[in-house]
């Protein structure tokens, strides 16, 4: 087991970290017990810490992540701040609380205190977010935004069982701007440490972050059962809850070839290892349907680690990205030693958690064809409004011209062994005038899509009803009613 070097709260630390050691366990082993394990699956945020991540070529963005999920070796060479170091980072007086800590303490934002270190870190990341603006322009703040520009979604991955959240929201909305001499704000002006290739082996498992794509593909060719990770949000759950101990984990998170975001000839290409937060910032509303997806995709803590490559790589039937990308008619760029190929996402899934991705192949990028369909919607049905897994997810992308729906693509999640296209509903709507009768007919076709199951999230009957209702809503909200127009 090789040691890793991590700067934590301004101090260099060097100690062993195995491939199956989470960042959380490593920190706690170092005596930093502020971060807590609440759920071990990235749902509660009690383990949140701040990581120095690149923000453009020469700046650092303090990014909050769940430390219970990623393997500790992935942070070799990195820089982390925990709740313990927040007020005292870079030499502040020991008793001096950080502004976030002060607001939380004074307003009753902590009761039992167990979730608090995680909240403090998630809140601090939003406090330092460079785009956060007081007022956010003219008029009322956006929903779930404070007058100081604080986006409450930054805390959607943190659960508190004691307070009922009101004092935490008040603390968040009361925050001012970082002071001129704020050490973490000052730190943002320089680049984070460059991610370095690293290796760790212990107990029959191995973690490797290769230096180049070539090295990654070589290694994958030799050991095709290796598990690829970027943020490790899926691997962490498998390790913590189902005790999976993969023989080889390959970290792809820092490979430039997987981190591009650019507009090509007739498509937008999104690197498979960009985090969802990075995509959200990089696209800045360029693809409205993705813009609708992001706030509903897990939580900010997860989006700061999770990638499209991971979400599609697991081929889960309930991943929220797939329905949206199906509606957008996306393709995947698959790469291996043998070269690259492009596969339509609609042809990618072959069965429950199975895909056409061959041994030795990785998802390098996702391509979204242009021009985009103008009428889009994303309906996620879940028990909880923030940070929940869908019982049903439905994405629509339609073109509407001359009073007719000329073209429509509908992606569905949660109703079959794979994400699917709602082909018969598409057929029922395409070429039609979106009257109430046409909507009802298309809704009836939607109700026949997939093979929904009963489970703890929802009944099959409800899932079917939600498909039907999603079509009715799409027609009611996104397509003009020709009868009303007459």
């Amino acid at each position, binding site marked *: 087991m090789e040691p890793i070097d991590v700067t934590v709260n301004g101090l260099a630390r060097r100690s062993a970290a195995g491939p199956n050691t989470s960042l959380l366990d490593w920190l*706690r082993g170092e005596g930093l017990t502020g971060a807590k394990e609440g759920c071990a699956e990235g749902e509660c945020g009690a383990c949140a810490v701040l990581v120095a991540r690149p923000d453009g070529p020469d700046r650092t963005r303090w990014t909050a992540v769940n430390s219970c999920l990623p393997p500790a070796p992935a942070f070799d060479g990195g820089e982390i701040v925990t709740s313990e170091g927040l007020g005292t980072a870079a030499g502040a007086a020991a008793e001096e*609380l950080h502004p976030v800590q002060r607001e939380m303490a004074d307003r*009753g934002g902590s009761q039992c205190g167990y979730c608090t270190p995680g909240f403090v870190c998630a809140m601090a990341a939003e406090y330092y977010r460079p785009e956060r603006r007081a007022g956010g322009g003219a008029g009322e703040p956006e929903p779930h935004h404070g007058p100081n520009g604080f986006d409450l979604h930054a805390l959607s991955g943190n659960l508190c069982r004691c307070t009922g*959240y009101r004092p935490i929201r008040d603390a968040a909305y009361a925050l001012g701007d970082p002071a001129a001499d704020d050490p973490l704000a000052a730190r943002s002006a320089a680049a984070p440490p460059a991610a370095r290739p690293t290796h760790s082996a212990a107990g029959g498992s191995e973690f490797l972050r290769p230096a180049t794509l070539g090295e990654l593909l070589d290694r994958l060719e030799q050991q095709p059962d290796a598990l690829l990770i970027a943020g490790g949000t899926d691997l962490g759950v498998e390790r913590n809850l189902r005790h999976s101990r993969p023989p080889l984990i390959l970290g792809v998170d820092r490979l430039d070839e997987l981190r591009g975001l650019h507009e090509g000839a007739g498509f937008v290409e999104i690197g498979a290892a960009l985090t969802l937060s990075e995509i959200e910032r990089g696209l800045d509303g360029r693809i409205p349907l993705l813009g609708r997806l992001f706030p509903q995709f897990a939580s900010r803590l997860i989006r700061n680690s999770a990638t499209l490559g991971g979400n599609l790589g697991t081929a889960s039937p309930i991943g929220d990205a797939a329905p949206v990308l199906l509606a957008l008619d996306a393709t995947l760029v698959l790469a291996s030693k043998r070269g690259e190929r492009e596969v339509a996402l609609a042809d990618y899934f072959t069965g429950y958690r199975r895909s056409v991705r061959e041994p030795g192949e990785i998802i390098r990028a996702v391509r979204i064809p242009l021009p985009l369909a103008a009428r889009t919607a994303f309906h996620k049905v879940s028990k909880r409004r923030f*940070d929940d897994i869908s019982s049903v997810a439905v994405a629509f992308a339609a073109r509407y011209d001359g009073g007719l729906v000329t073209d429509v693509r509908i992606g569905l999640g949660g109703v079959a062994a794979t994400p699917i296209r709602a082909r018969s509903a598409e057929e029922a709507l395409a070429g039609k005038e979106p009257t109430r009768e046409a909507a009802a007919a298309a809704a009836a076709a939607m109700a026949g899509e997939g093979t929904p199951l009963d489970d703890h999230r929802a009944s099959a009957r409800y899932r079917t009803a939600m498909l039907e209702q999603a079509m009715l809503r799409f027609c009611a909200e996104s397509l003009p009613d020709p009868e009303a127009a007459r």
Partner: protein
Amino acid sequence: MKSLAERPVNPTVGLTVPHESAALHVTGTALYTDDLVGRMPGCLHAWPVQAPHAHARVTALRTEPALAVPGVVRVLTAADVPGTNDAGTKEDEPLFPAEVMYYGHAVCWVLGETPEAARLGAAAVEAEYEVLPSLLTLTEAIEAGSFQGHQPTLSRGEAAAALEAAPRRFAGTFEFGGQEHFYLETHASLAYVDEAGQVFIHASTQHPSETQEIAAHVLGRSSSEVTVQCLRMGGGFGGKEMQPHGLAAVAALGAVLTGRPVRLRLNRTQDMTMTGKRHPFHAEWEAGFDDEGRLRGLRATITSDGGWCLDLSEPVLARALCHIDNSYFIPDIEVRGRIAKTNKTSQTAFRGFGGPQGMLIIEDILGRCAPALGIDPTELRRRNLYVPGQSTPYGQPVRHAERLLDIWTRLSGLADLENRAAAVVRFNKVHEHTKRGLAMTPVKFGISFNLTAFNQAGALVHVYKDGSVLINHGGTEMGQGLHTKMRQVAATALGIPLRGVRLAPTRTDKVPNTSATAASSGADLNGGAVKNACDQIRDRLAEVAARRFNIHPDDVRFVDGRVTGIGFHDQDLAFAEVVNDAYFQRIPLFAAGYYRTEGLHWDAARMQGEPFKYFSYGAAVSEVEVDGFTGAYRFLRTDIVHDVGDSLSPLVDLGQIEGAFVQGSGWLTLEELRWDTSDGPDRGRLATQAASTYKLPSFSEMPDVLNVHLYERATESGVVYGSKAVGEPPLMLAFSVREALRAAAAAFGPPDRPLELASPATPEAVFWALQGARDALKETAEDAAAGARRR
């Protein structure tokens, strides 16, 4: 200052102060039990072997393969228990069972050098089972006649005759779900053998004395040989009242047998699959009203799902029976209670302790019957509120009943109820796919343990020569701010600034024979004891000061760290100076405090008496918006008026009210426990055993606007500094949310149509309720059209 309720000048109680550990919380330096592991070299880790059957006999348990796993040190089995193999107080909870009673029941525990070694060891244990028939649902248990414990009946008057005579009669059944505590800190214990054979246990427990007793009886030792300490808990909510004992006993047993520290920390899945939850209930009821909507009679059979053993099911049922009236006078009543025995985790205490379940039944009855009675639900509730002079069905006069109507009236004004009700009607008229609902519900909750003996507490207060004060008391801190309040009580009683009082962690060798920190009684009981101890010391110091001032001791005053005489201030001493004098005069500077709640009596067999010191009152108005496409909803606004007496610590009380309200909303709307009830191989498995499948309220479930008002001028005589308990009662303010959802769902249908709503009212449940309403509206429209054609 001889009265318990009277406050001196400049009291520290009543001041808004942050939680006493707030700075430690926000910096991550507050320590919880499992944070101590790194300070314990050589610590072993415990991992359970959980049985994969709902009900089975253990026919073989081979532990040798586990010992062959590298790093495994020992496997603990029934054969290792030197004392009693039982984790409870009723001898019905074998710690190492020969018969598996629920899916996930731990049959033995493996100790390893690392958690990984212990886990692999547990996987290597070879257990064989003979699968036995199992009962999972309340319906199955009721049909099979599977009950446990007492079956008390609460009655007054002649319910049958009253129902017979009532002009309006209704009947129904209602089954509703339980709730997982989901304290953010899972169960944790850390045990080691101190010197001279003393067993020391750090535990996340609401009931250190009982943890101590049970660890002692498992170890076959006396209580004096076992010490339990609880630094603080990362949440308790009742889930750490009974449940920690067996886990602490396993850690202690491991420590005694290996001579090394043993850490037992459940991960979330283990915690959810092994420990008890809020009891689900089934109710069958008949209710009678007069023409004005006044309740005339109620007859019901309520059955709780107690799970596999009794645990606290009997007192939980008693409290459910004692709260089925909520805030309403029901002249004739007969409610039979029973506890089903099922093959599930042993259901246990959870904030409200049966009270919420009892009250939910009557609130559901009123919510369902109001449309049929043709009375607005808010008006129906108001008409039935207790008024002064009335008594509860168990014979306790409802003291301060006038507060109910007063709170109701004040809240109606503060919430602008009338205008907003009209606005909701207007909104619903113009929105086809979205409807809003508004509802107001009251809370009356009895404070004290039903079991009279538990209503006592102790404290130990030290004053050091430098004037600094250290207090110990029997209550535990789980986030509810008890320690904050106790410091305020001590500072007030001694007349010193808050910073002069330090609080030491709860330990059984400081204050013995304590009651659980439960039943909302922590501040009442321990506050009484802390104040008593401080009063003793202050009285002694008064004599010392009186000699210096040459005045009568009764005329000495302690204010803000200064000691002076009544009325004149030319003589004035620092508190520390008087303390120092007292030391040299050989006056004891420490005292044991004690408190017992007076005036309580309870006949559990007849279900009659005055079990409660007083009632806590409150009411809430909630407004919600429901989406007709999905049944999903948003909580728009909640206004609350709640009675905490004269608050000891307003920030703490506000936090308790808001937190309880949101937790109650979670129970009623979102949190859904699902077991595999199929006949497949996983029958009995908890399907919602993780944060990803069991959803607690997050930011999205907090009302957009939440206004909480403390009921003013509310001094409660006979309670420490005039305060009232706050932990549990506000949870039940969440009924307003459920009733608002009912109103919003009903708004999709024709007026005055009774609407049944499942509990929890998940988006799916609300969707089916509103679909029913929509279908009824369609039928009404079709009937009307058909009628028109006929004409």
